């Protein structure tokens, strides 16, 4: 299978999942989640009149059907490849998750949007996005090149430039940093300069740790945000950055419906900002591509905080709440991709230790 086809195809799938996520955000933001009361059909039809809230809800269903098909096709195409077990496992997980996602979507409609199911639907969407994004990363030019070398006898053979014992101990799976600058591959190797990391580098280890922690925090923050959104607590605290005109709500205000979850989301935002800044600081000490990714991550998180604030200031204007959700998804996936890339970069440790 042509690599370019795979590369473009997997990226397209990830982008389509992101668009599906935005379509879902539109359904919630326009309060159209129950505009179609039945499922899987819509008013007993495959294609009801696309008026009012039906445009968003049924549009979301149509897009979901198309994207699920794409994820299935992606899995089918990847299963035709030799090797690449990780990618196959991830693509299978993505396909299973998107099917489960469809089921959750149906259940939340039939049970009139219970917050638990709706929040799980929102969280699983992020996971599908992350899985497809990682599949796209692992089918990228850089990663494919590494993969080629892993199965290449030339690369797998002991290297003459290494001491015999080290060469014998080295597995036939070179890492980013291990890739030779010449020899078997004719592809360009940007890895030499901007992706080279070593497991012996404490800074790199620290960067991975902080990135994973920050990414987990972003995901938890998204989950809290989803619960807030689906319990109607988005404006439970109507002002920002103050809370009812103060730094923190009073005890009486705190006991009002939705205030606790809303405040948790605000505090979570502070935690996420601190953790992402810390991760970005660690990443800045690594090769250029990681440092750039870290900086972009910080930029996304700052944008996300602004969009959250703007959502409150605007009384939850639809474009802003949708943009807030989209930027949140990008923050999460950025963290996941950096984590995976760092972890992959560490695969050189067995060869070098």
């Amino acid at each position: 299978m042509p690599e370019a086809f795979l590369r473009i195809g997997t990226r397209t799938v990830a982008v389509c999942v992101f668009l599906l996520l935005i379509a879902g955000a539109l359904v919630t933001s326009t309060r159209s989640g129950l505009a179609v009361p039945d499922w899987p059909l819509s008013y007993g039809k495959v294609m009801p009149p696309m008026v009012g809230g039906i445009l968003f809800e049924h549009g979301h269903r149509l897009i979901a059907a198309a994207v699920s098909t794409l994820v299935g096709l992606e899995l089918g195409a990847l299963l035709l490849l030799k090797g690449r077990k990780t990618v196959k496992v991830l693509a299978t997980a993505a396909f299973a998750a998107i099917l489960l996602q469809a089921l959750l979507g149906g259940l939340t409609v039939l049970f009139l949007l219970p917050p638990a199911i709706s929040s799980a639907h929102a969280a699983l969407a992020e996971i599908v996005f992350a899985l497809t994004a990682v599949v796209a990363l692992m089918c990228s030019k850089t990663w494919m090149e590494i993969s080629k070398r892993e199965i290449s006898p030339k690369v797998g053979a002991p290297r003459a430039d290494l001491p015999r014992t080290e060469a014998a101990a080295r597995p036939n799976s070179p890492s980013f940093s291990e890739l030779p600058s010449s020899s078997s591959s004719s592809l360009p190797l940007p890895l030499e300069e901007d992706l080279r990391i070593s497991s012996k580098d404490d800074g790199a280890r620290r960067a991975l740790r902080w990135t994973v922690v920050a990414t987990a925090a972003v995901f938890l923050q998204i989950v809290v945000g989803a619960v807030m959104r689906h319990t109607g607590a988005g404006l439970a605290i109507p002002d920002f950055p103050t809370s009812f005109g103060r730094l923190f709500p009073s005890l009486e205000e705190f006991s009002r419906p939705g205030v606790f979850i809303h405040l948790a989301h605000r505090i979570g935002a502070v935690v996420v900002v601190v953790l992402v800044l810390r991760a970005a600081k660690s990443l800045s000490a690594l090769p250029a591509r990681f440092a750039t990714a870290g900086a972009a991550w910080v930029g996304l998180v700052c944008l996300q905080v602004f969009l959250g604030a703007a959502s409150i200031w605007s009384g939850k204007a639809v474009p802003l709440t949708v943009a807030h959700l989209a930027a949140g998804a990008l923050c999460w996936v950025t963290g996941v991709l950096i984590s995976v890339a760092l972890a992959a970069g560490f695969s050189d440790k067995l060869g070098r230790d």
Partner: protein
Amino acid sequence: MTGSILRYRLAPLCAAVLLGAAALAGCGGGDEDEDRPKSARAKGAAPEAGAPAAPAGAAASSAAAPAAGATGNATITGKIVFDGPIPKPEKFKMTADAFCAKANPGEVARQDIEIGPDRGLKDVFVYVKSGITGTYPPPATAAVIDQKGCMYHPHVFGVVAGQNIDILNSDPTLHNIHSLPEKNEAFNLGMPVQGMKYTKKFDKPEVMIHIKCDVHGWMSAYCGVVAHPFFAVTAADGTYTIKNLPAGTYTIEAWHEKFGTQTQQVTVGATDTKTVPFTFKAGA
């Protein structure tokens, strides 16, 4: 080997962690809905007005039938007015649906605040909140709510708990009718065909239940469900009348979807007619 370890261990681990996290996400949440009226959402609210008082020893003897509610010849009437600068009606266009736009060309005022020329406030639900004892069977006649011209008619109405509500769709476009109760069973019904009719009921007293159409976001109605027939909704001039009350001392509550609730105490004799006026203010 390194790559193999990465492939075999990293991917399933990531997938398992991510899917587990999604399951965790489902653990949060409550059942609050910001579309619900504040009065209905308030925690620890007093027992529903007018609910028949349980006779002494009722808990020990479930077989004891509650006494039938009495009626009489007393009347409570009044006018509900709005004080202060009259809010400018919020207007919108029904462009989301070609039929609705044709039925209501141009800008349409929302039904949430309607103040007459003499400051009479329309669509205030007035009912006896407490003081009524005994049980009242639901009337045989069904209440009616119609989806006509992409609006609900009436916008505010009341029923006795257990009374049938006929839901009509007079429009040649589709609607869904979605109730958002806290104490009663919610429903969300598709009504894609003109002339369709459903009959539903709310079995428990609940003031108020929000009803909306998710297809046409502007369509909104409120239903007050009480345990007795002593309620009314103000007319366009802000007047109301509650008839056939037995003699007694009652708490009367007036509910408006934007201006909240007010209560007053009143005592009526067997054939009295008492006037109980209310005055609402913005932000009061």
